[in-house]
Structures are given as structure tokens and as C-alpha cells.
């Protein structure tokens, strides 16, 4: 089970934020196209950063606590999952705050009117 430590933390993040989607109706997973388009550039850029950091030795991993699956560039699969999970949880938190507080963020259909006012 030791090799699942890293993904267990990621799973905890996803499970911990799941109630937001259900109870607060954040509708992040429900709007999966928007989710995909928002997260994809982050994954690409930060995987690039990770590959550079790995090649320069900025950080190293204890593969004994990761799945052990390595992608090209010695990139652990766990890291790619990290770059998907973290932005997803951030969007869920953002939509949860919006659901609770109702503050405008600038993407409301009527935001044009807000600007005129």
C-alpha cells in the first residue's frame, strides 16, 4: 500500500471536495467541457515545468511512495494526476465561494449591465 501514498493524498482532495459539487451545486464536473478547457493549459504548462525541474534535479521523488509508473522524461504518472487534481479542487473551491457568498466574478451573463452601472 506504501506506493499508493501519493495518489491517496490526491484521492483525499477529490473526495473532500466532492460534497461541494453535490451540496453546493458548484457544477464543475457537470460543466465538463469548460472544466477540460480550463485545466488542460495548466496541465501542459506545469508538466513542462516539472519535466524541466526533473531534468535539472530541482526535485526528486521517492518512487516507493508513488505508483512507480514513469512517463517519458522520468515524469511520475502521480505528478500528472497532481496537475489535474489541484486545479480541479481550486475551481471547486472558487465555485463553492461563489455559491455561498454570491459575489460577482465577472463571467455572469448580465455582467455587461454591471459594467454600465
Amino acid at each position, binding site marked *: 500500500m506504501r506506493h499508493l*501514498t*501519493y495518489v491517496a*493524498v490526491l484521492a483525499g*482532495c477529490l473526495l*473532500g471536495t466532492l460534497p461541494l459539487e453535490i451540496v453546493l451545486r458548484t457544477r464543475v464536473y457537470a*460543466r*465538463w*467541457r*469548460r*472544466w477540460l*478547457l*480550463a*485545466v488542460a*493549459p*495548466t496541465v501542459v*504548462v*506545469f508538466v513542462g*515545468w516539472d519535466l*524541466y*525541474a526533473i531534468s*535539472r*534535479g*530541482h*526535485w*526528486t*521523488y*521517492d518512487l516507493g*511512495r*508513488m505508483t512507480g509508473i514513469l512517463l517519458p522524461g522520468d515524469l511520475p504518472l502521480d505528478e500528472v494526476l497532481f*496537475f489535474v487534481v*489541484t*486545479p480541479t*479542487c*481550486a*475551481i471547486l*473551491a*472558487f465555485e*463553492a*465561494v*461563489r455559491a455561498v*457568498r454570491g*459575489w*460577482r*466574478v*465577472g*463571467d455572469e451573463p448580465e*455582467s455587461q449591465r454591471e459594467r454600465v452601472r
Partner: protein
Amino acid sequence: MSYTQLAVLGVLGAVLVDTVLLRTWLLRRRTYWTAYAIVLFFQLVANGIFTGLDIVRYDPDAILGPRIAYAPVEDLLFGFAMVTATLSSWVWLGRRGVRT
């Protein structure tokens, strides 16, 4: 480039995405800062696990040295860049009518 230099560049890049490139200006929104504060707390918890358990180790020459919850301060900049750029594109997509 060191992790420190890259992390600073990452923050600058994310701020430029939010203010100039996508013009979402989340940095002026309470929703953004409240969400960031929540994410930051959980980032410190997750980072503490990853770094405290030595799952991720950092080259002392690539970082400044100060650590928060076991993790180098650079990780906070890294996280800020990732969260800010993602939320900016999320809001930009919504503004552009990508709503499903």
C-alpha cells in the same frame, strides 16, 4: 534557472494572464481571494505530507532555503501561479460563453 527564479516567473506569468492576456482581473475579486485562502490551507496540508514524508525532496541549490510546513517557500509561489492561471481561464471561458 533555479526553482526560485522559475517560481517568481510563474507568479508574474499568472498575474499577466489574469490582468493582460485574459483580462479577468480576478486579483480584484473577493471570490478569488477567499477561494485562494481555502486552497492555500489545504496546499499546506498536502505539501506537508509530500515533503514531510520525504516523497518529494528538493535540491538545496535550487531553492532559497526557508520552509513552511516542511515545503520550500517556492511551493507557495508555484501553487499561486497554478491556481490563479487556472481560475482565470475558467472565468474567461465562462465569459466567452463556454457554459457546459
